[in-house]
Each structure stands twice: as structure tokens, then as C-alpha cells.
């Protein structure tokens, strides 16, 4: 490995050996963050979505080197089975998960929205999720779940 990537992943400072042409997706998966899924690998499906400096991006079309000194959040960093994030809980409550492959990316896109816009409209939710393809369920359930998570994140429920 020819260089060291300094990065904060899910709140933990890391120094990761990388090659300058490695994709961020591949590096994260090699480091054990398997919630970052490999789908289309061309920036279309959104299943590899992560938060980079609090913005949703597709890690399959970013080089790991681009993330130097940045903060990364993956699905492993926002909730646990026993203590799920409000968006994760809303996805469960609304029953919007079928195969589940797209869900980590979709939840992180939703978090990107709700962290910046605590009271979004339905159109704003649609726009926030427009980079995440789901081939099982359609999108109405996920949109409903994000709208349901919003008041919980605002502390109103």
C-alpha cells in the first residue's frame, strides 16, 4: 500500500493503508464495514451510499484518497439492533424492507435529509431518496417511513 488515509469512520479515528486508485467502497468493505453494499459500481443504484462530511455520496465512484481527513458515517455507525436509529425503527414499523440490500444506503440518504431539514415535505423526501433504487417494494413505504421518522428526530414523539 502506497499511502495512509487519515479518516474518521463512525466517530473513530483511523489510519488506513490504501492505493491511490482504490475506490472508497472497496476500502470500507475491506475494513469490515460490510453495510456498505456493492451494487452497480457505476454510481447508479445507491446501495453503497455513505455520509462523507455529513453529505450522502456514492462510495463506488469516489476514490478512497478523496476522503483524506474527512468524517465518514456508514450504516454501522447510526444504530444497533437493540438501539436502532429513529429512521431504522420507522423502516421496521412501516414494514418497508423486503430483500434489504438497498436499505443501508436509503437510510443514510434519509439521515442526510433529516439532519439538514427536520420537517421535509413529501417531495423533498422523494428528492432525497432519488439516488437509491429499490427493486422489491416500490418507494411509497420508504417515503412514509422517512416522514414518520421526522417528528421522532425532532423530539416530538
Amino acid at each position, binding site marked *: 500500500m502506497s499511502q495512509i488515509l487519515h479518516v474518521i469512520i463512525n466517530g473513530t479515528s483511523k489510519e488506513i493503508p490504501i492505493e491511490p486508485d482504490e475506490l472508497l467502497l472497496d476500502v470500507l468493505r475491506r475494513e469490515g464495514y460490510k453495510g456498505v453494499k456493492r451494487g452497480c*459500481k457505476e454510481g447508479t443504484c445507491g446501495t453503497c*451510499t455513505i455520509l462523507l462530511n455529513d453529505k450522502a455520496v456514492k462510495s463506488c*465512484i469516489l*476514490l478512497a484518497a*478523496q476522503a483524506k481527513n474527512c468524517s465518514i458515517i456508514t450504516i454501522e455507525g447510526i444504530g444497533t439492533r437493540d438501539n436502532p436509529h429513529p429512521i431504522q425503527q420507522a423502516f421496521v414499523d412501516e414494514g418497508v424492507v423486503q430483500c434489504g440490500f438497498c436499505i443501508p444506503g436509503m437510510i443514510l440518504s434519509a439521515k442526510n435529509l433529516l439532519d439538514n431539514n427536520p420537517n421535509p415535505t413529501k417531495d423533498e423526501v422523494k*428528492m432525497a431518496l432519488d439516488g437509491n433504487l429499490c427493486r422489491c417494494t416500490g418507494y411509497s413505504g420508504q417515503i412514509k417511513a422517512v416522514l414518520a421518522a421526522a417528528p421522532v428526530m425532532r423530539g416530538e414523539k
Partner: protein
Amino acid sequence: MKNVTEYKYPSNVSQALSLFSEQKHSTYIAGGTHLASGNRNNTIRLIDITRLGLNEIKDGDENIEVGATTTITDMYNSPIVKKVGKGVLKKACRLIGDTPLRNAITLGGNIARLYTWAGLPVMLLTLDAEIEIINPLEKTYSVEAVEHITNGGIRDGDIILNVKFPQKNSWFHAYEKFALTTVDYTWLTMAFAAEVKEGQITDARLAVSRITKVTRITPVEKALIGQLVSQLDLEKLKSLLKSSVDIVQDYRVSKEYRSQLLGVIFKRMLQKLQEETQ
């Protein structure tokens, strides 16, 4: 990208230019969304230009200045960018890719190489934008959008610093991207602008991409100038446009379909112009 062995992080423009001059097989990288998945196999050194402070949006008296590494999301959210062309530039930003892509794609990256699927080159043309560039000799120069397009985009080694957009708020503006879904690659991107005084068109810009290389359609622009908006012969103008564009191959859809599409979208823009000027 299989030959890349170096990734550099200059902290100012001068350093970035020096790094490029040292290694001729260098490529600048900003959002990187196209580069990471591309096949630039002769690139040995990547030079990251996202940490040079080129991401400011400034509100000037005559122009809105947008730094080259400003992301499309930041442009879309900017109240300053919203002022350009009565919101047409903001609309164009909304129609680029999807949210995670817009968080990464930069203005400079979208206009540097003139990819036909890119959303903003046609906007440069109809808004009469001016592009400020610096070359490896650290000489700064400005080019008008038309010249940038005619030159085939940015020269190797040069860096786009910013783009100045005249507000042109007295003009009518329209922008359309036609694709199967909002986030799909475009089949046709078209931008149209017209200056109307006392019901008469005094100046016009019409630009298309994807259906052909990024270009202005000057025969149609000339035909529009001097005409009364209320008396436009929409069918004649539609035909003129269709005959003025050399449609390129696209494996997804026939030339005949796209020719029809070209005419229909332009006609709708003209109808909107008529509605707004009545």
C-alpha cells in the same frame, strides 16, 4: 486508472499547477464521479483540487460568480444562484443526476470536458457565462462560453477558477432535460433564452446537447430575432430547428424519435414564451 501511483493534495492553485507541470501524465480531480469509474489509463498522478478554496459563490453587481469546485447541491441550495435567469440555473442543477451525485459533482467538472450528458454546458451558452481559467504558466484568462465550447472544453493543465453568470433577469429562460426517469442519463438537454421588448424578440439563445454535441443553434436564433412573440410560426421554427441539428447515434432510441422530441420540446418552450409575454 490502473497506472495511478500518486494522489496529491495541493493547498493552493499555484501548487496544483506546479504538480501538473512536474508530471505530464497528471489529471486534476474534484468530485471525481466520472473519473473514478473511467478509463484514463495514462494517468499516473491525480491532483485533488477540492482544497484550493475555489468553492465560493459571490453576488456581484452585474454577475453571480460561482467557484469551480462548488458542488451542484451547494449551487441548488444557494439563494444567490437562484437569482440567475429567474431560477433557471437552479432548475438545471436540480435535474443533474441524483442527490448523492449532486453532493459530489462540481460546476467545473460538469463543464470542463463537455460531455454531452452533462447538464450545465447548455446553460453556459444561453446565459452568456464567462469562464475564468488559469494555465500552468499561472496566467489567468477569461473565455466566453461560446469560445469554451468551440475550443472543445478545457485544455490539459489548465484549471477552471470560476464561472461568472450574468443575471439576465429581463430575459425569458427555459431549460429542459428529457430522460426516462428524473435521474436517468438525458436523451436531450435544451436551453432557450429570449430578450423581448414591446412584444418583439430582440435577441435569442438556443442550445442543445446529447442529441448532438453541445452547441448553439444559430439559424434558429437568427430566425427569431425581430419577430413578434404573438405571431411566431411555431411549426416553421420547429422545422427549422430539426433541419439545423445533426443528430448523433444513440443506441437507446432512434434518430426519428429524437428529432420529433427536439421539435416538441422547443415548441413547448415557445408556447411558454408566448404565455409569459402576453
